[in-house]
């Protein structure tokens, strides 16, 4: 029972990272495709401005997912990190490159340098979700059974590749929807059109990839396929499709702000569907939630800590997002920190 609850919390945290971090990676994706320096300037400015206050918070979810994995399901953690060493190592390197690229881009004086570091940031925004998605695909396909050595077979299968591509497309979709809403908020009508079109395109790509993925799972991952096309899994997938359709409709209108909620719902529901389809396994047909579960006392306390944390962090998170959407959060300008002529001559 405790283990099941912990597994749902793990899934919830994964969904939160996919949505929070996903928006962020998506912004990076659109940064990559924004075109040359002059043409890409306006979208890039919007991306920077929109990402700034919340990107760090969005990325902390990942740490929480990892901690939940090793405290709640140590066997699962060991199996995943042993079997899928390479994609996870590449994802980790991608995370560093992304941070480094973001940090280096603006202070660089020369255009060539700025382009280089910007490209590093943007390419890493593409590669990191791909490899994380590939790892998820590897888990779903059941190839990361405990004791599996790290070989390309585990994660380079079609399921993994499609999952990786789907992850990239989903982040692009989330990013475009959020940026459309931000463009509304910052009153930039041309950018609304710009990102709305991209939101639609990426949604189409997501749909195509999802169908390919479904066909793929039918052949190679029959356990997950069966559960996705029946019962709770099917219900969640249908709801996700409805939410995605609602998003496509909402971004077209004035109420694009609401599209953020439906797009997040769409992605979260897909992940919930995946989780439901995997029940009762963490690694389909070889490792159940119960088998992988850590000591009962640890799981018990993990739930208590999570409960306390939700009470502490929840309100703070609400305050952050409320302040952000009401436009009360804004980077300091140089005027704020330069302070004009300093009082001098003392002591």
């Amino acid at each position: 029972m405790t283990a099941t609850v912990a597994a749902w919390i793990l899934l919830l945290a994964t969904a939160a990272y996919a949505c929070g971090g996903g928006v962020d990676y998506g912004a990076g994706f659109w940064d990559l495709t924004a075109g040359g320096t002059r043409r890409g300037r306006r979208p890039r400015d919007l991306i920077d401005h929109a990402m700034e206050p919340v990107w760090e918070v969005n990325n902390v979810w990942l740490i929480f997912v990892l901690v939940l994995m090793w405290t709640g399901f140590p066997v699962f953690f060991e199996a995943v990190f042993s079997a899928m060493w390479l994609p996870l190592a590449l994802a980790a390197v991608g995370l560093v490159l992304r941070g480094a690229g973001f940090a280096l881009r603006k202070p660089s004086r020369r255009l060539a340098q700025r382009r280089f570091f910007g490209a590093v940031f943007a390419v890493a925004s593409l590669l990191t979700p791909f490899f994380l998605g590939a790892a998820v695909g590897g888990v779903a396909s059941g190839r990361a059974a405990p004791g599996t050595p790290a070989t390309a077979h585990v994660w380079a299968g079609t399921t993994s590749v499609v999952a990786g591509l789907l992850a990239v497309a989903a982040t692009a979709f989330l990013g475009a929807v959020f940026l459309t809403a931000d463009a509304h908020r910052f009153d930039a009508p041309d950018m609304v059109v710009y990102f709305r079109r991209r939101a639609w395109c990426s949604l189409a790509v997501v749909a195509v990839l999802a169908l390919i993925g479904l066909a793929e799972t039918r052949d190679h991952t029959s356990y997950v396929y069966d559960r996705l096309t029946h019962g709770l899994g099917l219900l969640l997938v249908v709801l996700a499709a409805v939410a995605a359709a609602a998003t496509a409709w909402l971004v077209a209108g004035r109420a694009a702000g609401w599209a953020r909620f439906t797009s997040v719902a769409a992605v979260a529901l897909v992940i919930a569907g995946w989780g439901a389809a995997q029940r009762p396994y963490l690694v389909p047909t070889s490792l159940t939630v119960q088998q992988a579960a850590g000591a009962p006392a640890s799981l018990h306390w993990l739930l208590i800590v999570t409960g306390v944390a939700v009470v502490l962090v929840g309100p703070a998170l609400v305050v952050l997002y409320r302040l952000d959407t009401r436009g009360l959060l804004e980077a300091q300008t140089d005027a704020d920190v330069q302070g004009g002529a300093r009082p001098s001559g003392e002591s």
Partner: protein
Amino acid sequence: MNKALTLLADAPAQMLPARELMAFTLATHIILVPLGVALPFITLVMHHRALRRKDPVALLLARRWSAVMAVQFAVGIVTGTVLSFEFGLLWPKMMGTWGDVFGLGFGVEAWAFFLEAVLIAVYLYGWRRLRPWPHFWLATPLPFAALLGAFGIIGANAWMNTPQGFRLDSQGRPTDVDIRSAVFTPMFGPQYWHFVVAMFLTAGYVVAGVYAVGWLRGRRDRYHRLGFCVPFTVAAILTPVQFFLGDNITRQVYQKQPVKFAAAELVWKTDTHVPEYLFGRLHPDGSVTGGIKVPQLDSILAGGSPGTKVNGLTSVPAADRPTPTQATIVHWTFDIMAGIGSVLILLALWYGWCWFRRRDLPRSVWFFRCAALAGVASVVTVECGWITTEVGRQPWIVYQHMRVSDAVTSTPATSLWIMFGIVVVVYVLMFGAFLGVVLRMSRRWRVAGTEPDGGDGHDPELDTPYGPRRETVEATGGAGPPESRSEPGDTR
């Protein structure tokens, strides 16, 4: 020695790169930790002073520190995430076996860190539009979140040093986990307080050191005076406290991790009337060359009398203790840490004496030279303390329960070396950028202080990533919100 060599030869080839990679990423991350844990507190002290006394100089300092905090926090998130990945990528067997016993500390840390990220975002981006006092109060939980995060991390590390709270079943796997005793292990208390005070002290000396340099270069205005006094006072008050905590943790190590103590003090054979070596080098036959030998002192320090018995390295089999080289490393880092700590006390006393006598800063230029060095020295101390505790535990990753060689990943050494290479290159770039950004900010601020119009032109490419932006960029950038086009003098 032969035995040690055999052991090394038996160790899997991937152990060396895995160890080096972990050591490198931790050593770099730990540089950011003092600022992450304590800079919010020091900034809030300054912020409070600014609001309470309506002091524009203090307000400017608090704003600038928060701009530095933004960059530091961003880099810290990146390096911290890498560390969580590395637990799985490098030591999967430790996490697979013990994750549920000691992982909860990390859970507490992850949530605390989450809270910190939220609050920092509100604080950093709230300067312009939130009202002054609510803005301040929204940030006051920050230091507590930082203390909570440290609680989690130190809980996990202290468990690795003195593991308990479980029973081993017939296959040698842990069962019957008792979380309370797994979190509050014997080394937890001493390690926690020693660590927290070290973080606050280091952050204080580092920040004060910056203004000490400015002072030495002749910038002796109220801005530099205040920027120096507040953090330096925090650090100076904590230095003697740390001296007692350091003495306490050493005694605790003596009792609870006797082999680590023996390595740190180069004690070969269990004996009474053990001499203390300052530096020196341990050889495989147990002899020590170089260094200064003080007869009896080690026994006195450990137990208060020369007759105190101190366990030596040979009290356990060679395979269960640090090698002579590792022991020498631990001994050196321990001595450097203790040495710097003692010198910092003198500095704190100097400051305290002048303040007591004349309510003013010391006038000597040497004081400021030392203060400028204190920042660097305290970072060195943090590194040394960390090496002492980690290398001193060798060859155990979980003391007396799992060796490092049993925990390491089965990924081939070549892959690990390649990853190590990539990580080093990227980290060098990233930390270079971090330093560059901070220096650029400070240079711009300095220029702004001397030239009323803000100095070096409005080149948009001079913008720093997370910190303050130039007003003109947002106004002409097109995509910025209209409300950001406020007057340059409009601070809120």
